[in-house]
């Protein structure tokens, strides 16, 4: 089959796009491969941006081994449109890229709370480097968002010597991890000096003194630096008119296909899970989706479907958590050994400040 595929275009150069390109080659595709990336950088490790990179002044924790797929890389340019009938991707600079097979891997961007330039977000490498530069002067910081990203940013800001207030809709992390783990992290955060303000909806606005966060009761939180971490928005605008992005996500089947010959992988793809079609914007999710999708494009129905188990990790406030299974999880865990716990009915196992191979963690969860 691969002999009939001459041109493959991968739109997106995050780990999903990179892995898709690698996997196309590994599956035997030896034709013309083009990778389009909207950032001017080589692919990097996004999880590192809010962890080691923010903490380490000069480090390169985000760097990945150089790509070996031999693709033509068009970086610093984004896709503007897609014509499924003509099999044509149009780029922002007007370039038209014809394809026989397509991988859609344009990921997601930070959801912003305002249009104000003072509102920092952390999504891409440039965001992280800019934030790291700002933290060098130890400004007071307000972080808007109590998810894992907001908490990692708050932790890094505290480590940089900043006074930090975290504004969260409800208890931080409770919606992502569940009450037990949210309690563990909340305690560690407060012990390290984090001020947590719980609110309903909050908004970001500008006044004479700078930007500030206004809580649902009208109270105001101000700081020298405002960083929001209020979730992500899939980058699907360039798919307008194709019918591929209904509801703002790209629905794919178990082999990562949105249409015959058109795959999607990574943060914008909703794939079948035990809980229905879902986006799972995690590192190993992007990698596994991309491998399956690339194989399906080259090998067709003979390619294996996705067999995916979430793996999530975070490092914050002196705690290192590794988790397998679908979070959040309710109730108290069963403690198997120091640092290792499980919620067996939910199929979740967690290691806390405990180095453990993932295969062992998966066995503990089963």
């Amino acid at each position, binding site marked *: 089959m691969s002999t009939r595929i001459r041109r493959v275009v991968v739109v997106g150069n995050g780990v999903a796009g*990179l*892995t898709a390109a*690698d996997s196309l080659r*590994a599956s035997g595709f030896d034709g013309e491969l083009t990778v389009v990336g909207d950032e001017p950088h080589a692919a990097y*490790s996004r*999880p*590192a941006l809010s962890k*080691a990179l923010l903490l380490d002044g000069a480090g390169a*924790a985000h*760097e*990945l*081994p150089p790509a*070996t797929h031999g693709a033509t890389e068009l970086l610093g340019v984004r896709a503007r449109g897609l014509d499924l009938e003509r099999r044509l991707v149009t780029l922002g600079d007007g370039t038209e890229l014809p394809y026989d097979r397509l991988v859609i891997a344009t990921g997601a961007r930070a959801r912003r709370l305002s249009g104000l330039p003072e509102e920092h977000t952390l999504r891409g490498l440039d965001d992280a480097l800019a934030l790291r530069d700002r933290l060098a002067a130890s400004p007071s910081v307000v972080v808007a968002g109590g998810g894992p990203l907001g908490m990692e940013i708050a932790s890094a800001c505290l480590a940089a010597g900043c006074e930090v207030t975290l504004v969260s809709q409800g208890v931080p992390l409770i919606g992502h991890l569940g009450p037990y783990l949210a309690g563990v992290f909340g305690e560690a955060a407060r012990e390290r000096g984090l001020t947590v303000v719980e609110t309903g909806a909050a908004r970001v606005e500008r006044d004479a003194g700078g930007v500030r966060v206004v809580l649902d009761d009208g109270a105001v939180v101000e700081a020298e630096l405002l960083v929001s971490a209020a979730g992500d928005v899939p980058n699907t605008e360039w798919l307008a008119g194709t019918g591929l992005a209904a509801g703002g996500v790209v629905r794919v089947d178990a082999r990562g296909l949105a249409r015959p010959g058109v795959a999607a992988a990574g943060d914008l793809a909703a794939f079948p899970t035990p809980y229905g079609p879902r986006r799972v914007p995690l*590192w*190993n999710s992007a*990698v596994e989706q991309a*491998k399956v999708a690339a194989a399906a494009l080259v090998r067709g129905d003979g390619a294996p479907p996705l067999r995916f188990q979430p*793996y999530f*990790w975070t490092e914050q406030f002196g705690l290192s958590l*590794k988790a397998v299974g679908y979070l959040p999880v309710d109730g108290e865990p069963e403690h198997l050994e120091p640092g290792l716990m499980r919620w067996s009915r939910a199929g979740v196992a967690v290691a806390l400040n*405990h*180095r*453990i*191979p*993932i*295969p*062992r*963690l998966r066995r503990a969860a089963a």
Partner: protein
Amino acid sequence: MKIVLDRPRCEGHGLCEEAAPELMHLDDDGELVLDREEIGDAEVPLASAAVRVCPVAALRLA
């Protein structure tokens, strides 16, 4: 080819073991052990998958 481990970068996630259990594993202390360093052409795809899945780029092929 050869699999090279940059041990200080390794955080012990073990996604590499999951990708290529024939080539590497984490020991009881969570330290990565390369069971095979020299690999033949047939194992390059497996080793590449292990290299790619590492979120901290602790592995490379040389």
